[in-house]
């Protein structure tokens, strides 16, 4: 029974989220036009889908989850594939949560510092740290591929396909300037 309750947690959370979103959608301000649906109709329909499905899943999991094959699944789920199932099983077995958390932290850190350090420097550091995090221990490969990759990115996105990327704040913007000077980018 505890297992059944545990499996309903995501759907209870979904239901709570639907309630919050309903309140937000209900607060959308507009001047009503007679005989015309309002701008809240569509979001409310989407919220209704979420709420109805959550209630359905909670009831199903609590009442009938134990019965064989009670879950309706997409057609592709029944495609006979031991290889796909095996891959999923292998993935579950080899789970490394600490790596995931470190990867998430690194990604968030990138977003925090990219404006200050500039795209080139922040990305260079990100590449190096991510490769170490991914288990590569060949230092030459890491530093060489990061340096070459970074210069290549700078060349492509600053010279060939111009994309507006953060230059960085002083003194870190000097790194971007140096690379641009090296590549004669004006």
């Amino acid at each position, binding site marked *: 029974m505890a297992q059944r309750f545990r499996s309903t947690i*995501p759907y209870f959370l979904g239901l709570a989220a639907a309630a919050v*979103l309903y309140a937000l*959608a209900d607060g*959308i*301000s*507009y*001047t009503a036009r007679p*005989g*015309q*649906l309002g*701008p*809240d*109709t*569509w*979001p409310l329909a*989407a*919220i209704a*889908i*979420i709420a109805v*499905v*959550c209630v359905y899943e909670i009831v199903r999991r609590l009442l009938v989850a134990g019965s*064989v*094959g009670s*879950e*309706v*699944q*997409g*057609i*592709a*789920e029944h*495609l006979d*594939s031991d*290889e796909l199932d095996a891959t999923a099983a292998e*993935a579950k077995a080899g*789970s*490394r949560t600490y*790596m*995931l958390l470190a*990867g998430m932290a690194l*990604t*968030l850190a*990138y*977003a925090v510092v990219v*404006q200050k350090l500039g*795209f080139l420097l922040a*990305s260079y550091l*990100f*590449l190096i740290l*991510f*490769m170490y995090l*991914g288990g*590569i221990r060949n230092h030459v490969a890491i530093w060489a*591929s990061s340096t070459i*990759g970074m210069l290549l990115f700078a060349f*492509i*996105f600053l010279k060939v*396909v111009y*994309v*507006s*990327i953060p230059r960085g704040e002083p003194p870190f913007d000097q790194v971007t300037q140096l690379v641009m000077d090296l590549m004669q980018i004006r």
Partner: protein
Amino acid sequence: MLDILIQLGAGFINCMTPANLLMLVVGIVVGLLVGVLPGLTLVMGVILVLPFTYSMDITASIVLLTAMYVSGTYGGAFTAILFRIPGEPLDVPILWDGYTMAQKGRAADALGWTLIAALGGGLVSAVIMVLLTQPIATFALKFSTPEYFAIVAFGLASVIALGRGSLPNAFLSLGLGLLIASVGTDPIYGSYRFTLGLPILADGIEFLVVMVGAYGVGEVLARLEQGFASKPVEKIDQTSTRLPSLRELFALRWMFLRSSILGNVIGLVPGAGATIASFVSYGVEAQYGKRRKEMGTGIPEGIVAPQSASTASVGGALVPLLALGIPGSGATAVMLGAFMLQGVQPGPQILLTSSTMVYTIFASVFLGIALMCVLGFYFIRMLVKVLDFPEAIVSAFVMLMCFIGAMSIRNNLTDLWLMIGFGGIGYLLERFRFPIAPLVLGVILGPIAEESFMNAMISFDNDWTVFFTRPISGTVMAAVIVTLLLPFLSLGRRRRSEPAEASSQPR
């Protein structure tokens, strides 16, 4: 007909310009590499090259993305046959007979059949694509808002019913996608919805931000959690390709045609892509083929059926994108994004306003398929060598491409934060077995669905029966209902067959 041929001829000439030809070659090579690398999916690959297209000519950028899409359905077959590593889920049926054939010392034959299947399936599908797009676009000019809504509803229903995973979870994923799509300024009233006081959210959330996050960052995080543990690759002695003889090909002609047409038709259905085409085609051959009892033992039919169908699905998927402006798969959704970033809206009008571009894209599909097979024939050893490349290095660059992709869509760092957020959502969805495709298609098709629904309600005095009473929209809505019933019918059949199987088991 003559007009189509003349325009296609002009398309071939346009395709031969240095810029288009270069993009074609680059797209084919990158698509093959993406297909070979197990950590990189086809959709992810197409998303990652998107930032490179921002300052390109629109035709060259679509040629690049189309070429990647085509060759991405072929590259994974090499590793499936040689190493039993499917580069993409669509390659799984190919390995059942392909790898078995290779194990019997006939790897070159298996690779030869794959090449011919990709070539034949792709070309048949390209011909159908050229013939179908114009009539469908002309027909679609008669569509009003109820018809558009019905077609979008069909696309959403297909992605839910035909996908993997639980149907309720797919609905939740879709609901979330529709909600994300409704963030921003309402197109009819101009009122703000879920903007949380952030100015950038008033412009809505770009679906490319959602796609890059959910497919790119989400996938890399999931692989990182597994420690980038790819299967070790065995050393192989020979990677040559031996093409089948004309007599061998002639013997399989009908099966070839059947699989190619089936793949093309499946590609036409929004939500059903190359993977479903590959599995269904293999399944049809295993049930109705002449050598159905030998399927799985390493026979050419087991390779030709899935490969020709998956490559043929590309031509099919391009038809609704170009003729209706409705993407049916992740890869065509990215193409829609590339069109829109350049200010071009695909749909029934595109053949009237930009026929040169459309026929250049068509021509690039023909040329791309031929080029893909030439590269596959001569450079297979070099292509499978990329498997030696450490996944952590590839993934680090994938992440960086995702960052650039997000930042450059609107030149705003908020999009980077949003993309990372959607990366987290993508990871959680994958982790808890919620399908991602309905979320993404919900975000893409949501605005089209809402606009056509609201306009239909305004035009027809809030009479919702209009979707069912008009001939075209009524037919499509009936198809929506049938599509949504399919998983329930499948569940009923399973329930009936399980007790029968259980009772037939020896005690």
